[in-house]
């Protein structure tokens, strides 16, 4: 009896070892260990065995069951793993196939640059306004101390829609509108579209974009202006950028300056971007003219302030190396897709 059982175990183990399919393994398991399986049959046959033999053979059968169950479990684990591996291999896909769905678009480079700049000044407590693009003579000229015979008032420079109504030629109009409504301290950014009678070419456009800052407070000086411009230049052109002030003339500021930033391309050594000078003109600025303050009902003996204004189009072309302004208003998808 013992030998028969031992033979069954051996045969079964052999059968397990050659089984490579889970289903076959299960069938084998049922055939040997199932309710009416071969080994179970021996257990059932114990009643025909003598009482002395019974525990002994019972022990044999049980040992054989434990041994075979272990073998089945082990084989099952291996086969399950193999099955899973096969399934995973079958499910493998070509991950380099292209995506055919919708891709994200992008903001225009002018907007991206504007938002970066606005973000900087908002972090310093500047408000942001966007005032009318069509303005009266008063807001575009008179209130900004631009005298009646100033060349800017020429139809050659400014686009008129009526004798006293113009397409604003600068965003400084927003300064006046803010000062009329708000008492100092004032810190505000005015930005938007502006218009000049310039034929479009690589560096001119009849429509372009400006961003201006205005600060009115007690005891504001040229040094405060320089400080904020240095901060701005470093922010937009990279750490270590410095600025240089050069005297200039704007009717609405006195003193007036042109502001150059050290060229980020060559770190001041001179290159093609800065035309060999090491400096790039980025904006105009100055101390707000006393007459402008007076005109807005702000006492220039108590308050002073500074203003600065830049062409966003210019800053954008510098930052991205765009060599022709006109391409910014063509809306060619091949251009727009470069600024994702």
């Amino acid at each position: 009896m013992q030998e028969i059982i031992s033979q069954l175990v051996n045969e079964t183990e052999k059968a397990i070892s050659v089984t490579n399919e889970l289903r076959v393994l299960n069938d084998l398991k049922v055939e040997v260990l199932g309710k009416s399986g071969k080994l179970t049959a021996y257990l059932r046959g114990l009643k025909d065995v003598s009482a002395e033999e019974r525990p002994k053979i019972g022990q044999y059968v049980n040992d054989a069951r434990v041994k075979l169950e272990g073998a089945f479990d082990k084989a099952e684990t291996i086969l399950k793993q193999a099955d899973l591996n096969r399934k995973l291999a079958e499910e493998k896909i070509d991950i380099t196939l292209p995506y055919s769905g919708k891709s994200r678009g992008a903001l225009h480079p002018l907007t991206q640059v504007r938002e970066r700049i606005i973000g900087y000044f908002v972090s310093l407590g500047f408000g942001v306004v966007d005032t009318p693009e069509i303005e009266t003579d008063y807001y575009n000229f008179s209130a900004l101390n631009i005298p009646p015979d100033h060349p800017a008032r020429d139809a050659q420079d400014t686009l008129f829609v009526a004798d006293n109504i113009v397409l604003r030629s600068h965003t400084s109009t927003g300064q006046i509108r803010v000062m009329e409504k708000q008492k100092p301290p004032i810190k505000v950014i005015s930005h938007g579209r502006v218009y000049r009678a310039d034929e479009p070419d690589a560096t001119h456009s009849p429509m372009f974009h400006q961003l201006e800052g205005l600060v009115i407070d007690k005891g504001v000086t040229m040094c405060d202006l320089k400080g904020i411009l240095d901060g701005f230049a470093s922010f937009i052109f990279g750490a270590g950028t410095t600025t240089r002030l050069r005297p200039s003339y704007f009717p609405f500021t006195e003193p007036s300056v042109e502001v150059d930033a050290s060229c980020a391309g060559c770190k001041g050594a001179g290159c093609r971007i800065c035309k060999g000078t090491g400096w790039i003109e980025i904006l105009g600025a100055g101390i707000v003219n006393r007459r402008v303050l007076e005109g807005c009902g702000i006492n220039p003996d108590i308050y002073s302030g500074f203003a600065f204004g830049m062409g966003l189009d210019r800053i954008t072309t510098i930052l991205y190396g765009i060599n022709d302004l006109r391409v910014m208003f063509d809306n060619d998808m091949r251009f727009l897709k470069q600024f994702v």
Partner: protein
Amino acid sequence: MKFPLKWLQEYVKIDMPVSELVKLLPSIGFEVEEIITECEDISGVVVGKITALNKHPNADKLQVCDIDIGGGKNNVIVTGARNIAVGNLVPVALPGAKLVGDMSIAVADLRGVTSYGMLCSGQELGIGAEVCPNAAVDGIWILNEGKVGEDIKKVFGFDDVTLDISIPSNRGDCYSIYGMAREIAAATGKKLKPLDLDFVATQSSLEAVPVSIEYNECTRYMGATADNIRIKESPSVIRHRLRQSGMRPINNIVDITNYVLLEVGQPLHAFDSKLLNGGIVVRQAFDKEKLRALDEVEYTLPKGSMVIADKSKGLAIAGVMGGEYSGITSNTSQIFIESARFNKGNIRATSRALGLRSASSARFEKGLDFLSPEIGLKRALVLVSKLKAGRVIGNIVDVKPSILSITILPQNKIIKTSVKDIAGILGIDIKKTVVVKTLNSLGITTKSEGSKLLCTIPLYREDIDNFTDLAEEIIRLIGYDKITPTFMQSLSVTQGGKTEYAIFCDRLKDMMCAGGLYEAFNYSFVKAGRALALGITDKTLLSEIKINSPLSEDYAVMRTQTISGMLESVSLNQKRGNATVRLFELGRVYLPKTVPVKELPVERDKLTIAISGGANIFEEIKGITNDIMRFCGVDDYKLNYSKQPFLHGGISADITADDTCLGYFGKVHPMTSEIFEVSDCFVACFDTNTLFEEYQAKSVRFAPLPKYPGISRDIAIIVGENVLAGDVVEAIKQSAGELLERVKLFDVYKGSQVETGNKSMAYSLFFRDSTRTLIDNDADSAITKILKKLSDDFGAKLR
């Protein structure tokens, strides 16, 4: 303005190299546009004198010259030229010389004779008739001037450098050699040399020309007479300086007037005084008065313009251009030089109206001070005697308009300020001695009065108005590098940030990007009549704001709609072969309240979308629209076939909510597509301001998540093929009762399984009660009600 350096150096010593000067000038407010060096590529050419001329022993067409090149040296030069003779002064290119076109000269053997250099034509030196008539001769340039051995460039002043400097528009005083010399002197601490104004006058019985001013736009009129005039060419120095300054030398008298204009900034005009009939009258032009000017064009003078006339006719357009009649000719023997002061606004208006700008009008437009005519006239008279152009008569005329009494003659402005005020605005410490010294260097005199400083401003500095101007003068001369940055030191803490509306717009733009669109920037101006081309009949959109003098017809009016610009951008992309176009723009339209414009127009923001290329575009643009509506809190909007004339009536929708039209989207009408040269294009447009109102009204409240399960039912119905899916959903919602949580169309079928003219629509419905678990009966009774409603409204049958 162009500034020849040697001319500047007549009035201020410049001992720094040009490279330094061009850095100094911008630092004091004058941009250097160009550094002009004449005959830069010429070197090694000297004046030589032909001392002997012999036939070449081996060549008939060549001659052998002996040339005295100075310093006791003689060179033998072989030449083929025929127009030379012994005694001629000629330009000699010595061995090693460089000529125009990168040509270099070397010792050469010419048919057995060694030639040490070359005789030059004007052309080989790049010099033409404008410098010297002889230079243009075919052959060797026979010189009229120069010393033997002298560098040819020096003879004609070509060793000079001219700087083209841009002058800020408030600094009319710097539009002259003397004005710029004053600035350089102040910046370098050098002395400004005085102008030579001491002319030699002859007493004569010749009566002064009577002058009367009948027009107050002339605030001073001076003049003087000279006789014994000999019209000839000016000396080469004067001619060269005029040329360097961009002016054409004419003759000695005209050249003097131009020279003085450039040197001191005072425009002058010389009349042939024998042609004057009874003196000068400064008057307003008659109605449609005509005058033939020196440029041989007959001008019709605009209203309000000023004329210099005699008793019988107009002689000059005051401040702009002289008349042909009384101009200087080779026969002129007696002249009257006008040196006047005209109001800048008047000259500017006349010059603009005539489209005629001259060196004179440019100066008058900048404004001249009261003393300028006197300086200009005296300087001209000095030159007339110096150049021996004629005899100056001492009777100077000086007339002011009758309303200008002596008491209101211009006074020097006095500004009362303090070092503290000046330092205060600059934000730096500055010593009183520096303030005083700097101001004095500019001709501003100072006087201390306690802590105050009284500054007397010379008349030529009309731009200086208050202490901030003085601060600017000081800081630009001591250098802006003295400004030490202080970050936010004097600035109060304020609350910054964008407006709610601006933030809303930013979010909309981000949404558009997420929807696969790229931001476009279309021009605010468009061709006239674009709204009409779109078929728009709404009067508020048809009345466009016209730009007075548009740059071109493409920029003629301000847009009242954004569709045309967008279509043009799509067209451009399609023409360039960009297969898919996905654009949006958030920009303004300009709606006039009246036409022509009398008051500021209404400016509104529009969000515009354009899509072309790809499948299912209608669904794509509808999806974007739906996102916009959801973002703005508009859950319950209606779509009706669009009434926009430029949209395809059957593939487009107007979006309304509570009877407000929020926008539209759909396919561009075939006719519009043809006009704007686009194909397969879809657009959408929303009034951003209106969307913002909806957005502001949006209120988001939390609803507890459902606790009880719901029941899902699907129904398929057969309806006529023209029944709209949206209408069915609406009917389902109306009839289902409160338990319906959501309804969704999941299939539409037309084909063999359904009778012709009908379609099957399958909807998935979901019912839920927030207070209990639903039973089948609940859903069944709702479905019964729904089917009844659908049957009543659409004749729908359950499939």
